[in-house]
Each structure stands twice: as C-alpha cells, then as structure tokens.
C-alpha cells in the first residue's frame, strides 16, 4: 500500500468576484475510499469537485492526483488525467442529441477512439449493470424518466472504468425508492471497479449508506472530517445540526422574516 493519497487537496481557494467560495480546503482521499462531502446549498461543494476535475481553475492551492499536481497541467496533460475520472452530474447532463447508448459510449468513442460497434457492446453491458435493457438504448434522453436518466448518467460515468468517480448530488430530485436504487447501484459499481469516489450530497440517508468517510464543508472550509461511523458523535455542533436537520443551531440560514 503506497502512502501517496489518491487525491490530495491543499489550500484550495476560489472566489467569484467579492464572494469567497472556497477558503483553503485541505483534503486527503485514499485509494478505494468513498468520501461523502456534506454541506448546505451554496457552501462550495460543487465548486470544490469542479476544481478537482479541472473544470474550474482555482485561485490558489493544489490538487494532486496520484501525486501529480493537475492544476499546473497544460491541455494535453489535463486530457490524459481526465481519463482517470468519471463524473455523474446533478442534472444528468446527458447529450440530448444522441441516443442513450451513444451517450454511454461517448467517452469510449470520442475520448479513446474505440470503434462504434465495440463501444456499443460495452455500453449495452453498462446499461444492463444499471438495470436498463436493450430497448432503452435506442431512445433519446428526453424520452426517459428522471430516475432512468440518472441511471444512464451513472452508466456513462462508469463506462470507461475510471479510477476516480465523482457524484454530484446523485439522489437529488428522485423519489425515496429510486434514490435508494441509485445508492445501491453506486455501491455495487464502485465495489466492482474498486474506484475512489467523492460524493457531494445533502441527503443524509444516502450519505450514511455510501460513505466510508464524511467531510463537512461550511463557508468554504472543511470543518469536520471523520469516519462515517462517527458522524453521530462528531462532537461538532455544526455537523450535529446538519445531520439531524434542525433549523436552530450554529448554522444560521439567511432568511428574513416576512
């Protein structure tokens, strides 16, 4: 077992205009770990994973993937590192001009230059893994329900068998049963691939189920970070308030009285 963490984030900072979104994030994620990042809306969760992915350039700090600082890479190097990643976007972000199977096969065909027939066969297998049959493969994303879109999106994220998978609110907007189906699929896929994952969510049921470790982000900082089992005895009032979902506590929502 090597000592280099799979992902190492140091002093990651980002501001948009006067608004500080990330304020010196430090995070280590070991190979094979499943980190769940919790935090309220607008706490900087999405910006953090977009910085890790390289979609947003941070103002300061470093992101090391397998020890390599990816914030300093050029376009070509970034494309090479990007092949290690799979990402499930919050809204699915499926390409609505392409049929389902081509969405799943996209990274294989465009990113790796695989022949279409071969990529299609892999896509059908991945779709089967998320419980979708061959007839669905020919449909367009707009013809699918929200839960099916999420599953297609999951199939696309795992199609290239990435080493690192990022999930942006995978269960948001789904009914509780479908949300749990997605949780189970995430666990199954991750175990099969042995991937390292970061999930951002505010769904505590989902967090408890898929996390091996939990970090809480508040005002652009990691305020608590520990094993998933310790989440109910964190001793941190912020975490307690969030986990139990109380309106009263140290976290004050900016709501003015009517």
């Amino acid at each position, binding site marked *: 077992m090597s000592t280099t963490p799979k992902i190492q984030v140091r002093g990651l900072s980002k501001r948009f205009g006067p608004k500080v979104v990330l304020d010196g994030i430090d995070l280590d994620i070991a190979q094979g770990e499943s980190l769940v990042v919790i935090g309220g809306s607008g706490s900087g969760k999405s910006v953090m994973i977009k910085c890790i992915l*390289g979609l947003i350039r941070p103002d300061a700090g470093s992101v090391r993937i397998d020890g390599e600082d990816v914030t300093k890479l050029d*376009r070509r190097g970034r494309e090479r590192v*990007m092949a290690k990643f*799979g990402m499930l*976007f*919050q809204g699915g972000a499926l390409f609505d001009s392409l049929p389902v199977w081509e969405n799943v096969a*996209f*990274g294989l065909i*465009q990113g790796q*230059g695989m022949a279409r027939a071969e990529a299609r066969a892999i896509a059908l297998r991945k779709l089967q893994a998320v419980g979708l049959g061959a007839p669905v493969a020919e449909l367009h994303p707009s013809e699918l329900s929200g839960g099916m879109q999420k599953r297609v999106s999951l199939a696309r994220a795992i199609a290239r068998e990435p080493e690192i998978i990022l999930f942006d609110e995978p269960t948001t907007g789904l009914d509780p049963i479908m949300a749990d189906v997605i949780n189970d699929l995430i666990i199954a896929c991750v175990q099969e691939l042995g991937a390292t994952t970061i999930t951002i969510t505010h769904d505590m049921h989902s967090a408890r189920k898929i996390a091996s470790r939990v970090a809480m982000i508040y005002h652009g900082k990691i305020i608590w970070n520990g094993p998933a089992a310790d989440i109910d005895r964190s001793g941190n009032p912020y975490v307690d308030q969030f986990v139990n979902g109380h309106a009263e506590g140290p976290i004050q929502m900016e709501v003015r009285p009517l």
Partner: protein
Amino acid sequence: MGFLASIGRAVLHLLATTGSVSLFAAQALALSTRPPWHWRLIGRQMIDIGYYSLPVVGMTALFTGMVLALQSYTGFSRFAADSAIPTVVVISITRELGPVIAGLMVAGRIGASMAAEIGTMRVTEQIDALTTLSTNPMKYLVAPRLLAGMTMLPLLVLVADAIGVFGGYVVSVHKLGFNPTSYLKRTFDYLQVMDVVSGLVKASVFGFLIALMGCYHGYRSRGGAQGVGAATTQAVVTASILILLSNYLVTELFFSRR
C-alpha cells in the same frame, strides 16, 4: 464625471469583448486544423446550414430580385435607361444583395439555433460533461460549426444569386415587356467574374461571423432559460451588425483593388 466614466466603461467592455471573441475564434480555428476531425458533426452542420436554409434564402432572393427589377424600372424609365435594368439587377444581386440578404436570413435561422443549442448545453452542464469524457468542447461543438458556416454560405449565396436574377427576369419579361433573349444576353454581357467572386468571399466571411457569434454567445451563456434567451438575442443582433460592418470593409477591399 459620471458621464465620462460610463463612456470609459463602455469602451473597456467593448475592447474586452473583442479580445475574448478573438481568442475564442483563434482557439477554435487552431483546433479545427488538428485531428481527430469530427466529419459526422461537420456534415450535420453543413446540411443544417446549407440545405435547410435553402427555402428561406431562395424565397427572399426571389422577391428581392423581383422588386429590384420593378424599382429600377420606375427610376430608369424616367430617363430612358430601361436597357440597363438586366445589368443593374445582376450586379446588385451578386455583389451586394445576395450575400447580405442570405447572411441576414441565416443569422436569424442558424445563429439563433446555435446559440440556443450550445447555451442549453452550457446551462445543463453538458459542456462540462464533454470535458470529463476527454472531449474538447471547442473542438467538438465550435470548430465544426465555424467550418460549416464558412463553406456553406458561399454555396447558398450562389443559389441565391441565380434565384435573384431569375426573379428580376420574370418581372422584366412578364410585367415590363422585355424581350427574354436580349434580357439574358444583357444580364451576362456586363457581368464580371469578380462581381460573383467578391460576393462569395463576403458570404464566407458572413458564414464565419454567424457561426462565431452563435457559438460564442451560447458558450458563455449563464443562468438558465433566461440566460439562453439573452444569448440567442445577442447572437442574432451582433451577427447582423457584424455582417453589415464587414460587408462595407470587404467591399472597400475589392473596390480599391480596381
């Protein structure tokens, strides 16, 4: 002082936008010269721009040619210069009206749809998804549209030229009593290759500008449906203005050569 400051801000904004549009265009053009080439996408854009714009461009060209003959007749018959009508029609159409009218129609049709499609892809994170699948969105989305715009507009204008001249012919022969043979002879007697070529060069410039504005505004759209709507308006308005501006510049270029 507030007045001066607002002028300064407007000028700075204009310069900054010009710079970022130029960088955007340069990046897309540089990428379009490198493999892999997305033939499928280029082909689809070519069909969309070239083939599906034929009815609207053909129709506007026809009526423009017809009204041109009618108006020149009203003016020219006052000093017995009716015989100049075929020449006036063909030169006005090929040098000026064919490219400009086709350009403006295509700006409305294609510029708007490009901005709306790419803008929607931006706000639904599909552009981010492309990046995570190791596909450069500039190369996948923007470069094919620029190439298709530059190559298809001249072909469209060639068709528009023919239809416009035909429109003038129909009105002259059937309404104004011209002899068909001598009308056609006069049409081609004074037409020079340069008249048509300068029109086609204009068309290529317009096609580039239309696609560039559609892609640029779509690519940078923010904030949901409203942002996409604003991007679409911006794309059509800026493309139309740039078409008329560059029309003058290209004309001046060809004019001062002779």
